[in-house]
């Protein structure tokens, strides 16, 4: 962010004070992105824009509101700030509401997390067209005469923010990312047209997998869905594939957030220090990994980022507690949300795990479903492959698993060596024993 934006952000803080705010936090951000999609060997979508905005948190004692606007003209902003402060007067006083104590801002690590690629501008729209074309080609070659449709594409974006608070916090972040992938539909029996996808992303193009691999992987994953049907309700081991572990993990994590704990909506509220899962289950939150999607030097409250063990050998060591809920819960804050989540990988590939198990279901996708943060009960649809003698024999669809997280994570029996690379939760494939999969 340049000096002009810094000065404008400082002016916003001063203006909020002028109209009666006792404290405030201003966040200016800017995002530039380009999206290109191909289908039938021609561009289907070309989209480009730059957006920007101000988010302003206002405190009048314990009265709080948060307002945002894209209109950064100074006269429009002054009117916006005045109205925002005026409206905050009508909010009821909440003694827990304030900016964090300044002492919690201290200790930020001075490290270049390499979240912005200096060569990002060299990824021109022309190159993006070539990327989309290459992926479409490799995908079409692999799908052969089964193909109905391939939509290949790529996005790139550049994002930066500046945060200032009236009590001394300053933070700037700049990131870049690029993504490429394809969505594929193939012909199956009757009117079934299975659709699969594969997308990969990185902070820079140089860290992306090969474009041919991306196209072929999208095709392979779609062809794998052919012949999907439900089978008889059965209890057997399942392997949850790395890229979809987050769908299950999310339900477990919902019990660890300060808001849910304070609002009595957490099935894990009283379980800190207790073993709630198998010994194999460890989760680490690490915001300081270079180039990773969840990396940051400070969190949403401005607290310095640090590595934390959330669950160690099945025992809860830390909750995610932000400043506001730490005051309501009368405890020390940690951090309000996840950064990069790591489940330490094992030493076997999914193929080796299938061989070890003999018969089971490899879950490659979830559909619908729900997880109840108050009780830990969940129910979710699955898509995947039945394997026998370690080899996939049948695609399965329209099936479901249901359990309680306090029971389910105790069934964790093995961990794959394949942490997912293209997101901020670096989850490997996980094996759970004795899972009832409902079908016919």
């Amino acid at each position, binding site marked *: 962010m340049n000096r002009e934006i810094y000065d404008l952000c400082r002016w916003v803080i001063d203006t909020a004070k002028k109209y009666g705010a006792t404290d405030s936090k201003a966040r200016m951000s800017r995002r530039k992105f380009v999206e290109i999609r191909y289908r039938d060997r021609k*561009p289907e*979508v*070309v*989209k*480009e*824009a730059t*957006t920007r*905005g101000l988010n302003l948190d206002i405190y009048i004692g*314990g*009265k*709080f*509101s*948060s*307002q*945002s606007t*894209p*209109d950064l003209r100074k006269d429009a902003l002054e009117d916006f700030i005045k109205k*925002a402060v005026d*409206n*905050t007067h*009508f909010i*009821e*006083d*909440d003694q827990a*509401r304030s900016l964090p104590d300044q002492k919690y801002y201290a200790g930020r690590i001075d490290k270049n997390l390499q979240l912005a690629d200096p060569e990002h501008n060299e990824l021109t729209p022309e190159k993006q067209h070539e990327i989309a074309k290459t992926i479409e080609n490799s995908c079409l070659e692999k799908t052969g005469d089964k193909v*109905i*449709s391939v939509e290949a594409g790529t996005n790139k974006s550049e994002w930066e923010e500046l945060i200032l608070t009236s009590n001394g916090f300053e933070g700037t972040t700049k990131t870049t990312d690029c993504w490429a992938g394809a969505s594929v*539909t193939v012909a199956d029996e009757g*009117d*079934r*047209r299975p*659709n699969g996808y594969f997308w990969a992303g990185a902070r820079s193009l140089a860290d992306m997998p090969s474009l041919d691999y991306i196209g072929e992987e999208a095709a392979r994953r779609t062809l794998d869905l052919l012949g*999907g049907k*439900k089978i008889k*309700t059965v209890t057997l081991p399942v392997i949850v594939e790395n890229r979809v572990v987050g769908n299950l993990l999310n339900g477990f994590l919902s019990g660890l957030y300060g808001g849910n704990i304070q*609002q009595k*909506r957490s*099935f894990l509220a009283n379980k800190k220090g207790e073993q709630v899962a198998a010994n194999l289950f460890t989760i680490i939150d690490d915001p300081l990994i270079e180039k990773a999607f969840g990396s940051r030097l400070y969190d949403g409250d401005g607290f310095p980022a640090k590595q934390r063990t959330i669950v160690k050998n099945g025992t809860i060591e830390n909750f995610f507690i932000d400043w506001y809920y730490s005051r*309501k819960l009368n405890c020390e804050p940690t951090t309000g949300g996840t950064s990069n989540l790591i489940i330490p990988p094992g030493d076997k590939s999914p193929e080796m795990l299938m061989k070890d198990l003999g018969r089971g279901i490899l879950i490659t996708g979830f*559909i*619908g*479903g*729900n997880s*109840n*943060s*108050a*009780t830990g*009960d969940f*129910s*979710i*649809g699955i898509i995947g492959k039945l394997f026998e003698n370690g080899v996939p024999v049948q695609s399965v*669809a*329209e099936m*479901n698993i*249901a*359990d309680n997280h306090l029971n389910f994570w105790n069934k964790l029996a093995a961990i794959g060596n394949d942490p997912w690379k293209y997101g901020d939760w670096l989850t490997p494939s996980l094996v759970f024993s004795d899972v*009832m999969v*409902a*079908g*016919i």
Partner: protein
Amino acid sequence: MGYFENEFGINDNLCQMLLEKALSKGGDFADVYFEHTIENWLMLEDGKVNRSYGNILLGVGIRTVKGDQVGYGFIQELTKESMLSAAATAASLVNENSRPVASSYKSLKTPNYYPFNDSTIDIPLQSKLPVVKAINEKCFSLSNLIIKVNAGFHDSIKRILIYTSDGVKAEDILPRNFLFASTVAKKDGRTEQSWYNFGGRRDFSYYSVGMAEKLSEIVVARTVNLFDAIQPPAGEMPVVLGPGVTGILLHEAIGHGMEADFNRKKISTYSNMLGKKVAQPFVTIIDDGTNPQQLGSINVDDEGIPGKKTVMVENGILTSYLHDKISAKHYGVEPTGNGRRQSYEHYPQPRMRNTYMLGGKEAPEDVIKAAKNGIYIEDVSNGQVKIGEGDFAFYVSQGRMIEDGKLTAPIKDVNIMGNGPKMLENITMVANDLQLHEGGAGACGKGGQSVPVSFGLPTCLVKSMTVGGTRQKGGAS
């Protein structure tokens, strides 16, 4: 009307210039979409309305279309120079000779399906506070099992202005608002929670302390009810869908597959079914933008086509997909007014509005009796569908067992799984009690865009669906 001209100086001459730029390198047509949205949230937690959130959206999106190809640029700064640069981005899709645009613009006149006297957004916060606070007091008074109450009021006003290269100018003001409540209850060491809302495109007079109390009664009953709930056995069984909000199942399982973009690309399971029998003769399914005050109603869609009522399935025959301009041209039909977008940052796609099935002849109790043994679904959430396969899954948030033709124990924490075309075929009875859902929170996601929608259903029997529980059929829990 004339809001954008008065506030931002947007006029015919400027828009003609933008459209000319958008078609300067060719293309079939272009449009310009201005939006100014103001939205607010008031939230109650631990007995106090202790926070409010506000957001403003302001910008313009410019689209160039050639066949099924889309060039799109958008910008927040409404200066001529910035807007021309967004138009140039849209134009970069093609590289041919320029196409002329209309020289004059006719204002579209439509009925107003959501008139209001008092825009909720203009009502001062201090008038909204008592309604939200009433929820807290009422919920705690209704049951001593309640340990936490959260409530809130959301409202927005979205102003849009559309210019099309074929000479249409359309302007609209879309209100959206809802009052919501959630409660947590504890009994014998067990915790349960539930949520409900009332709303739509309403006038502020729709909301009152009385409504807040009615909402509280519903949400407390739903929460406390869960203490008696069991999980049904897993496997295939008859399913009765109760009236109203269960129409979301129709939206997900059937409606998405009938959106014409999926069909022109041949990636929907319904791609070859137009004109064919897809359901019993007593099944008629409609997508409608014209229901008064309903959340999915639109006076005009986001491409400048008037809001309409579209019969998708008539007496069991698939009669129409849901079209935007691109798919209508592809199929050689009139657009159905389903071209919708989340905001100026997005280009339109075929999207549903209010989707419902017409009522049949049966009495609701006869439908339940006919199911004999199965489950009755009162409310569902978290629906998801795979368009190409037609497979879908839903979470049942409120329901009951049906045993020997009667409603018995409440059920909880189960999913239902099915296949859209199979479910349509398997609807064997339809009751005479169609209800449209009276909510304001419904949002449908597609292609990274969320738009407000509503739905409705009469009680109906699906002869077989997969229920995902933790008990084997005939086994112990």
